[in-house]
Structures are given as C-alpha cells and as structure tokens.
C-alpha cells in the first residue's frame, strides 16, 4: 500500500518535471532572444533597424536595415496563402464531403505524407525543377526569386490547412446539412453556404497554422529565393527573415552577429503574434462547439 502511494507520488513528480521542461524551454528561449537581440537594436536604432531599406552587413560602412526581409516574409506568406488556401480548402471539402470513401482513403495518406517530407527535400526539388522552369516560363535571366519561394511555400502549407479544415468540416453537425438539403439547396450550395461557414473558425485556425509554417520556414526558401537583400519583387532575388539569419550566421562576428540575433527576435515576435491569433481562433472554435 505504501509502495503504491510512493509510486503515485514519484510519477506525479515525473509528470510535473516533464511538463515544466517545455515551459522552461520556452522561457529560456524567450529570455535569450530578448537579451541577445536587444543590444544591436539599441546600437542601430529601432527605426533604422526596422525601416532601413538597405542591408550591407560587411560593407566598410555597414547598413543594417531589415525592411526588405520583413516585407519579403510578409509578401511571401501572403502569396503562399493566396495560392495555398483555395487549394487546401477545396481538398478538405473534397475529402470530407464529396469524395467516395475509397478515393478519400487514397488522397488522405498522400496529404499526410506531404506533411512528413523534410523541408530540405522541398527545397532541393524547387532548386532542381522549379527554378529552371520559372526561368523558362517567364524568360528570366535568373530563376531564383520570390515567386519560386511562394510556390514552394504554398505546397508546404497545404497539409496543415487541409488536415485542420477537414477536421473542422467533419465536425459540422449533420443536421445543419440535412436541413439545408431538405430545404432544396443543392449539395454544392450546402457546402459553401452551410458547411464552410459553420466550420469557419477551424478553417481559419488551419490558415493561421499555415501562415506560421510559411513565415518560419528557412531551409526550402533559402534554396530557391536567391538570398539577395533586395526589396521584394515577384521575380527578384530576395531574402526572408529566416534566411537572413541562417545565411550569415556561420561567419558573422561583432555587430553583424548581434544584428542577426535581432532579426531572430523580430521573427520571434511575428511567430508569437501568429500563435496568439491561433489560440484565439481555436478557443473560439471550441466555444462554438460547446454550444
């Protein structure tokens, strides 16, 4: 009896420690990012840092303006969402409402597999296939550009959009749809006017999850975007926030290195905001389901 009690207690402690590991990791990372990211911002000046349009970290007179990176990350993500969300949503509708079970059983594992493919593989295929193809299609002198990155990101965010939206669509009470059909609406009308609005918050959560993945992706983007610190243009070689950090970190020193930490801090803030949004939509979805 005593032994049982002791085991209970020990296991409780073990669970508690495990639970706190994640919290401690987040806390430590946050503190580290702030401590290592602030000095460069203080030295460069917040306005010059965030809104400077030129990045030349190793020039004789170094310039540390990260506006090109911020805008590239924003436009890259927006582009990926514009392409990825319709495809993802349609796939989710197809899987949950339209497809015959046998077909759905074939498509679903493919989507799952898509999410398991490492980003370096996306990057490699983008580099070997997509970049030369873009060069060819648009008659460009150089195929590494924002557009290539957008296409790669659009594919990469599909799995999160599809799986979260599908779950949300499946959770729509069948009575809603039955009522709609009984009133004479067609199946397609029912999907777009009843099912999707009812699953709205779940779908938005999927989209936000996709945004998070797109804005945080480094490897695949680095291989197709060209990595020059230009202001964004669809067919220009560009650098994202993530790749700005990744590409220069290995040899950086001094203020350059500190500035890279500051970029990471800005990225960290972006992710925090996106996570906040995600929690907001998930909670809203939970509340609606509870009704």
């Amino acid at each position, binding site marked *: 009896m005593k032994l049982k009690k002791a085991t209970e207690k020990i296991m409780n402690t073990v669970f508690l420690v495990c639970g706190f590991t994640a919290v401690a990791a987040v806390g430590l990372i946050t503190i580290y990012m702030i401590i290592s990211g602030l000095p460069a911002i203080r030295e460069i000046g917040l306005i010059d840092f965030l809104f400077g349009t030129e990045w030349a970290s190793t020039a004789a007179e170094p310039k540390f303006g990260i506006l090109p990176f911020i805008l590239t990350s924003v436009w890259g993500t927006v582009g990926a969402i514009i392409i990825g969300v319709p495809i993802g949503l349609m796939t989710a509708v197809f899987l949950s409402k339209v497809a015959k079970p046998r077909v759905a059983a074939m498509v679903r594992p493919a989507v799952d597999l898509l999410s398991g493919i490492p980003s370096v593989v996306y990057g490699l295929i983008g*580099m070997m296939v997509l970049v030369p193809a873009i060069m060819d299609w648009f008659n460009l*002198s*150089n195929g590494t550009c924002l557009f290539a990155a957008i296409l790669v990101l659009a594919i990469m965010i599909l799995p999160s959009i599809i799986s979260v939206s599908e779950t949300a669509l499946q959770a729509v009470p069948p009575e809603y749809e039955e009522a709609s059909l009984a009133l004479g609406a067609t199946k397609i009308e029912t999907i777009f006017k009843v099912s999707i609005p009812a699953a709205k918050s779940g779908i938005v959560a999927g989209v936000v999850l996709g945004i998070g993945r797109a804005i945080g992706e480094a490897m695949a983007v680095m291989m197709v975007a060209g990595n*020059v610190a230009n202001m964004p243009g669809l067919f220009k*070689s560009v650098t994202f926030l993530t790749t700005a950090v990744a*590409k*220069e970190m*290995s040899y950086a*020193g001094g203020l*350059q290195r500190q500035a890279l930490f500051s970029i990471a801090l800005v990225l960290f803030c972006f992710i925090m905001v996106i996570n906040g949004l995600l929690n907001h939509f998930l909670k809203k979805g939970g509340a609606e389901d509870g009704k």
Partner: protein
Amino acid sequence: MKKIVAVLMAGLMVMGLVACSSEDTNSSTASSNSSQASTSEASTADESSEVLELSGSVTTGGSTSVESVVGAFIEAFREMYPDVDVTYDPTGSGAGITGASEGTLDIGLSSRALHDDETGLEETTFALDGIAIIVNNENTVEDLTLEQIKGLATGEITNWSEVGGPDMPVVLVGREAGSGTRDGFESIVDVEDACVYSQELTSTGAVIAAVASNPNAIGYASLSAVDDQVKTVTVEGVAPSEATVQDGSYQIQRPFVFVTKEGAELSDAAQAFIDFALSDDAEQLIIDAGAVPLA
C-alpha cells in the same frame, strides 16, 4: 498516433544516419591526423626529446578564410603536443593584425599581405588561396581580364556579348556576406561592396551547382572545389592551377599569413606551431583544407 510514431521513427533514422556519417568523417580525419602526427613525431623525435614536452597555450585569431586550414593545423598539432592548447578566434584579418600588434594574440592570422602602414610586424606566408572564376559549360567565353571580371561583377557589363560571349544576360552568383571566398574575390578584383548579386549562397558547392544550372551565370569558387560541372575561365590568359598560383602568374589569389610582432620573442609553443605549419607535414593538411601549399 501511427503517424506520429512513423514521423518519430523517420526522425530517429535520419539522426542515426547523420551520426554515422559524422562519426565516419571524424574517424577518418583522426586517423589521417594520427598518421600525420606519427610521421612528424618520428621526424622531430630524434632532434630533441624535450620539444615533445611542450606545454602552455597559443592564442591565434583573425581571418575567417583560413579557418579550415588553421583548424586542420590545430587538430594535428594537438596530436603531437597534447599539453599545448591552441585557440583560434575567427574575427577577421583586420582584427588578427591588430591583435598581433597589440600583443593580445600570439599569432595573428591574415588572408592578405600586410599594408605598408602596418609596421612593426612580421609576416610569414604559410599557404596560398586561389579563387577560380567559373561559368556555365554552355558559355563560350574562355578568357576574361581582371577589368572585365570587375565589370561583370559590378553590373557594368550586363551581356556576355560585351566580353566575346553569346548574347545572354549576366547573372552573378556568389557567397553570403562574411564568407572568406567572397571577401577574397571582392578584395582581389577590387569590387568590395559593389557587386550586384543575383544569388547569394552559403557554400561553394551551392555556387557551383547554381552556375552549372544557369547558362547566364558567372561565379567564383575555391580552386580546389571546382569540378567539370562548370567551366573555369582563364584570367588574363592564365588558367588557375596549383602551379600558376604558386608562381604568382594567376592573379586571383591571396596569401594566408601568420602575423607576429617584430622583434618579440615567441613562446616555444607558438614557435613550434609556426614551424609545424611551415613543415612538409603540413602540406597535405593545406591541400585537404582546400588551399594551395607554398612551392
């Protein structure tokens, strides 16, 4: 749940592979180093036995470009003299030279020769670095002058027809800011901070791959890394090779230099390190690290 397990398993397998391969390279370098060390021990052992009992520390620092060469030196040197602690701080050639003149470093490392106004210092070249100019295999350009390379890099020349090539736009592919190869190319060709890049990549291999896949591209890469995926152009009529770098006729090259304070007495350990770097034993290490040994 199944999916999570599958992903975890895949992750473990990948980690396993990485671990294996890194172990392999480690053990192979270690074995080559130990063979290196044993031959050098054999050669130094008969000179005097007290040298082997060297201890202390040697602080070096400076150029980031010399990292792979000096890293190899340090590893091999540690095999010979386990009690000597050699440190290397990659801070840039300028900081290395300053460190040597101010005495904060035992040995400063520079990837350029000393300027005339940097007096009171002694320079010892221990290796050379050749940078090859590469173009796509489809490109018909065979030779470029330094002036033409400068024009191509800064965007003054925008079409290959201006330098005797096909009618195609010029796309400059290079390395990221902070890279030693980039710094070397830009300082030798005199285009510092003036290059108009279309791609900035993070490894020599990536630059070569990018040039190989784009017929418009021009790029630069460490001489030792270039293979037949791309075409190496001659510069002012001289093809880059170990021999032309050594005799100085190939112009896109720079020396790797130890900088020490003039007249200052080096510690035994620091002197031993320099002697080792200049010995025949170091030659293979220099070649393996991608640089060109002295003639």
